[in-house]
């Protein structure tokens, strides 16, 4: 697969931005600067970027508890996100959502979601709106290998087929749902087949390889956009951190993490491919690295300096207009 240089540079920049955002967030959590429950996406960047590079602002995504990567890939403001993680009132969600609820309607980001499989039904709704309006939009939902066992996910898949809506279900198999392996939690032997049994095609990708995801996602999105109903992407991937920050990761095989970082790093893979094809030089990529590091640094300084929310803000933003009075 050959892509315009612009595209290649952008894809790498997006993946690198996610990587460094996450690694820095990790550090700031360890520092005690970021509160709450945070789930890091490090290692899975190629999935988010490989999918979102096919989308524009009017297409929508809905993400999961592990949402930073999807949001950045879909164009969320990195500084606004870092401020949100820090709980600032200048954050993308004014400090009210935090890591698990990063959202940006203007960018078509219908939110990270703290409820496992909360997203797919909502995404079917966005897809239905696209079908009704015939505007050529697609709605992408991300799910993990654990999430696919939740009833809402199944319902959403069937409903999407029934209504023939342009919904794309991206399943990221990072092999674990919290501390449980997919080989335990998914009862059948072939999750791709189980998914296809609902009546739509699922395209398989190597989640550590941007090009592989880009290609599979392209097929799925094209299928949906063309009015053929839903489609799926199934990517095998690995997360480099624990489920949450502080996870002892007793479920890992010996050497698993080293192996992942060594052999399943989408950034390394991307560089290797570029080196082989000569499409981009290492210098060009190094330059991006430097720019990304600056951006992340900037985002953290901005987040630390940003305004803190005030108590009055607690009761704001519940409704657009609530004429009755609340009891307390």
């Amino acid at each position, binding site marked *: 697969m050959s892509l315009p240089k612009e595209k290649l540079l952008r894809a790498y920049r997006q993946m690198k931005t996610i990587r460094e955002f996450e690694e820095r967030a990790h550090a700031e959590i360890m520092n005690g600067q970021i509160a709450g429950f945070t789930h890091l996406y490090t290692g899975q960047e190629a999935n988010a970027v490989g999918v979102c590079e096919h989308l524009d602002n009017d297409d929508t995504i809905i993400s999961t508890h592990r949402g930073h990567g999807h949001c950045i890939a879909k164009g969320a403001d990195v500084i606004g996100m870092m401020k949100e993680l820090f709980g600032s009132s200048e954050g993308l969600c004014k400090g009210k959502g935090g890591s698990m609820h990063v959202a940006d309607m203007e960018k078509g980001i219908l939110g990270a979601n703290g409820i496992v499989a909360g997203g797919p039904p909502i995404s079917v709704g*966005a897809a*239905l*709106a696209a079908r009704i309006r015939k505007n050529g939009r697609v709605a992408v939902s991300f799910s993990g290998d654990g999430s696919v066992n939740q009833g*809402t996910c199944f*319902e959403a898949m069937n*409903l999407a087929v029934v209504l023939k809506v342009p919904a794309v279900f991206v399943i990221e198999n990072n092999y674990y749902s919290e501390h449980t392996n997919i080989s335990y939690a998914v009862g059948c032997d072939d999750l791709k087949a189980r998914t296809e049994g609902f009546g739509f095609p699922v395209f398989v990708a190597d989640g550590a390889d941007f090009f592989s995801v880009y290609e599979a996602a392209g097929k799925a999105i094209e299928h949906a956009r063309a009015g053929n109903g839903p489609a799926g992407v199934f990517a095998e991937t690995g997360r480099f951190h624990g489920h949450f920050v502080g996870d002892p990761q007793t479920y890992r095989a010996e050497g698993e993490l080293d192996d992942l970082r060594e052999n399943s790093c989408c950034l390394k893979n991307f560089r290797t491919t570029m080196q082989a094809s000569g499409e981009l030089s290492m210098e060009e990529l190094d330059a991006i690295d430097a720019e990304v590091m600056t951006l992340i640094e900037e985002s953290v300084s901005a987040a630390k300096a940003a305004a803190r929310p005030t108590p009055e803000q607690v009761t704001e933003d*519940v*409704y*657009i207009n609530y004429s*009755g009075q609340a009891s307390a």
Partner: protein
Amino acid sequence: MSEKTMRDAINEALHQAMAADESVFVIGEDVAGCNGSQGEVGSVGGVFGVTSGLYKTFGPDRCIDTPISESAIVGAAAGAALVGMRPVAEIMFADFIGVCMDQIVNQMGKFRYMFGGKSKCPAVIRFASGGGFSAAGQHSQSMYQVMTSFPGLKVVIPSNAYDAKGLLLQAIRDDDPVLFFEPKALYQEACEVPDEMYTIPFGEAAFVREGDDVTVVAFGQMVNRAAAAIDALEAEGISCDLIDPRTSSPLDEAAILESVEATGRLIVVDESPPRCGLTADVAALAADKAFHALKAPVKQVCAPHSPTPFSPELEAAYIPSVEKIQTTIKELMAQSR
């Protein structure tokens, strides 16, 4: 203007809202009916017939049948609303909130807050609620009291056809997510309902009766019963305010408090069980904010702490009756300090 049943008034509101605004559509189980069959698609209009005719008038993009997948139905409404549509989803029985509560409470109801006020989710979910059909434990609950607990949702409970139409048109126009509970015992009840579109604002109670001695606040199906109880007591020289809040969230606290300030006595009537319900909610409001005006204990008339029974006799004993409301009013008058 003509007499219309609550079912017809709601149906008319849906027709008018859909004609007026292209972004309004209806989705749910059998809201059209007969899809996939050799029969006539669109010939059903929901099990209670409330969406009759919508498919025929507005076609398959605006009146959408679904599988039995309530979470997906609510999710689909929520998602479509987030991107600018105004869906009206039907969940057949309010009891089925059990299988889709997350999508209502944790998703639809919290988007705006979690997203820092930067989203809008103008979805309406309609439910048939309450008892009166010998439908037993899983098809008779009102559930609106539970939904009232959750910030981010608005909760509407019409008690007559006129209000139902005006409140539903407001719900569809409203930019916040709205849960619309239709007491199914009232579907066949009729009153004068204007033919044209009109809205009733949320958070404004209706004064159904005006009186001096006791304030009676009643919800949904109980409004008629409370009115009957009050009318019967007139002969005995007892006169009551009867307040129908119409929406439990927002609640018209001012109307209730003003009345209690004047009467000094409060009875709250609802068909749900007692614990953490609307009767307690309104009673507690008065015990705080109208305390000094109170002349007598604040009484709750509601179902007992039991599931809804099947047998007609048991259900009749379960749902508050006109007699029970009447007796409570009389006891209260006797008990005042």
